């Protein structure tokens, strides 16, 4: 063994510096890999795995990541030269639709054979071929079985179960104003049960829940840590936690929704061949299988891949074929922001009041119930308002456009006043101060 440590001593003491200097002057390598610049908001667990696998498959290219959240991606891709970006790869359908309208993309230079354009009622690929889904995420309920057992709570299977007052104080719900994935979550029961019943369900669910924001705590933390028993969430956070050993289960309701992530090649791509290679790789069997890694756990868009995934891996295509996923994401995409804002005004802002009113209502007699229930459950906005393109534009542009912000803020005030008046009347009927 000492041969390792003795004979080469003199050489080895000098080794690092000498070898490094020698390496600098002797180029034995192939031509430098050409950059493929990818704009994304994926976390490192996703990026690093695709980076390693792509560069192994395509050693002539080197991935260069420009990290931007979707609201910051727009200005990057709108600037001259599109910031040198070749590929935009992110989960923000609204941003893709916007950029397509602005001619920011070129037609996808790859075959989409074997990649369905929709999951149930949700279109996931651009019908004009400018962008395609690279993965989808579903929504549902994270459940801690030990917590439910400890609190003698029945299991949940669908949205309506969550409205049962037996779950009061046991639910965690992401605040849709704060948490990026949550607006779609809010819209799912509004579509599945209809506008009025959907909002009524949400009122009762919100009264049972505590809201989580964007402070860094995930629903999976709350449920896995046993602080709450049931958490509403996009699936991959929880599925990843489950795959890594968290004592949690994930329940997909009978009617869920999907949120696709997309991939597109920029109109001004400096390296279109490299961009094509990366898009090809992401959509290939090899790329799609990476999505099943325990640290990622997103849903592949290539149905043929599911056969090789771990047992029990959720297959949205199979679920859709059985009648699930009727959710219309094109409709939801437009109204997500106003719906989230209205949700905030109706349930998050006056949450303590809402909890108190529902608690009193559950103890009230039938006549009082009939008078008060509509006051707590009426939608804070009309469905026609949520579907109004002018209102949708205002909420989408409010960060950047003062006029849009003024319109959005005014509408929020209107909805807040509407809700406050109903809650005040309910309080009066219930004898609450």
């Amino acid at each position: 063994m000492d041969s390792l440590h003795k004979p080469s001593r003199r050489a080895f003491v000098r080794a690092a510096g000498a070898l490094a200097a020698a390496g600098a002057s002797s180029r034995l390598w192939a031509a430098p890999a050409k950059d493929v610049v990818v704009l994304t908001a994926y976390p490192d667990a996703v990026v690093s795995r695709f980076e390693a696998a792509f560069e192994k498959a395509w050693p002539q290219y080197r991935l260069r990541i420009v990290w931007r959240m979707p609201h910051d991606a727009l200005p990057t891709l709108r600037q001259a030269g599109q910031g040198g970006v070749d590929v935009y790869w992110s989960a923000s359908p609204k941003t893709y639709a916007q950029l397509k309208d602005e001619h920011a993309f070129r037609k996808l230079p790859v075959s989409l054979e074997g990649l369905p354009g929709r999951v149930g009622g949700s279109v996931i690929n651009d019908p004009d071929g400018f962008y395609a889904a690279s993965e989808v995420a579903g929504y549902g309920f994270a459940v801690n079985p030990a917590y439910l057992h400890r609190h003698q709570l029945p299991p949940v299977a669908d949205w309506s179960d969550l409205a049962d007052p037996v779950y009061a104080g046991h639910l965690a719900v992401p605040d849709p104003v704060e948490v990026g994935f949550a607006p779609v979550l809010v819209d799912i029961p509004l579509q599945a049960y209809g506008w009025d019943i959907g909002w009524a369900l949400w009122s009762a669910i919100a009264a049972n829940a505590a809201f989580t924001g964007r402070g860094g705590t995930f629903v999976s933390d709350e449920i896995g840590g046993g602080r709450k028993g049931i958490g509403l969430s996009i699936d991959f956070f929880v599925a990843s936690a489950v795959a890594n050993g968290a004592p949690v289960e994930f329940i997909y309701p009978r009617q869920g929704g999907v949120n696709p992530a997309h991939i597109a090649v920029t109109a001004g791509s400096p390296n279109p061949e490299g961009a094509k290679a990366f898009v090809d790789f992401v959509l290939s069997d090899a790329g799609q299988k990476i999505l099943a890694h325990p640290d990622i756990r997103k849903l592949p868009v290539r149905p043929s891949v599911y056969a090789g995934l771990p047992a029990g891996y959720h297959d949205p295509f199979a679920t859709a074929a059985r009648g699930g996923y009727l959710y219309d994401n094109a409709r939801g995409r437009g109204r997500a922001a106003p719906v989230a804002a209205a949700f905030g005004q109706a349930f998050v802002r006056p949450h303590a009041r809402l909890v108190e009113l529902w608690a009193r209502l559950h103890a009230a007699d039938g006549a009082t119930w009939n008078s008060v229930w509509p006051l707590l459950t009426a939608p804070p906005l009309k469905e026609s308002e949520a579907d109004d393109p002018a209102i949708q534009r205002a909420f989408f542009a409010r960060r950047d456009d003062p006029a849009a912000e003024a319109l959005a803020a005014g509408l929020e005030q209107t909805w807040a006043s509407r809700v406050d008046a109903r809650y005040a009347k309910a309080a009066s009927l219930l004898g609450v101060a």
Partner: protein
Amino acid sequence: MRRLGFLLLMCGVLAGAGARASADWQVADAGREAFARPLDGLSDAERERFFRGRSLFNQSWVVAPAKDDQVDGLGPLYNRLACISCHARNGRGLPPEGADERMQSMLVRLSVAGRSLHGGPRPHPAYGDQFNEEGIPGVRGEGRIRLSWIESKHRLADGEVVSLRRPRLAFTELGYGAIGKVQTSPRVGQQVVGMGLLDAVSAQTLETLAAERKPDGVKGRVNRVWNPESAALEAGRFGYKANMPTLRAQLAGAFLGDLGITSDLHPIENCTAVQAACRQAPNGGTPELSARQLDDVEFYLAHLAVPVRRNADSDVVRRGEALFAASGCAQCHRPNLSTGTSPRFPRLAGQTIAPYTDLLIHDMGPGLADGRPDFAASGREWRTPPLWGIGLTQTISEQQRYLHDGRARSLSEAILWHGGEAKVARRRFAALPTQQRRALLAFLESL
């Protein structure tokens, strides 16, 4: 062997006592979340702070200017986008397996002969003290490093042949001229659990450990390093050469060196005199990492619990534990340390911990030498790395790579690279019969 047997009996008792220390700092989790758990008993406000810190540790930083103005300021020169990039699941980084793979969770420190103003390594005049492969748009990265491996075979006493490898570096696509003669030190990311506890071990404890007389030629010194916060030389304890005095200094140094994020401790961007575009690039604030953000990340890392040992009471592990001590490993990989006062994080104070380190620097021989001095540490000296959690490396990192440059592909390889002050212990390990060697490794796997 008679002497070894005696030591085995004596040291086994001592080592065994250390392994079953207080559980306040431990968490019972042997899964892939094992390095991500907070200490028990955090208040709601502390939990919020812990998770805020986690978000920042996991955050991919963005190029300034950006609407996300709390997390902008990446670079201008940098290695990776996020802290977590080099410490996936809070575990160890991995080196490239060949010259065509990039350094995803590894970096290379640079210096030239001489010392910096405060006695540390003297940065390369063009490339600084760390090679940053990446640059933000408009700022050329420093180049590429290709790492290849040189393999050699070695036969153990029982006839088993072990292949060991050491890295060879080559710079390519250099962005700022020829690099010339330069000292290099490749480093993979380290696991980050238990750092708050190590931060709370007093400097006096380290001095006392260093002053102890030890057998087998083992010495151990305290590195004396610059603390940018106190503007003084202090005992080093973090980093592969114990070249950082505190968790906060370690963090702020990594934010600057790896991500190009400035802080109150390092307010100047990491650009050298010849890197004009770097010096003119927009920043993400002055500093880019606010004091509160640094507080939050520090709180997060300080309060990451250490996983409880597995199978600690099994016969084979107990035999291995005794062999670990009897072979002399525990002279440096100390089973027990005590934390001192911890004014900022009181729950870390007064704990008896089992990190299996003395936090001292030791001559590890020419095989591991990088030839790059770092404050008091010579090119042959390295800090004793903590071994707690090492048995979960495969689970957390999905591969086993050990030592500062990830050259060792198994714990056996890592031990066989020990030289210098650890030469006697390594020889004892190499001479052990197969079953005893396996028992010692089973003990390490239990940590």
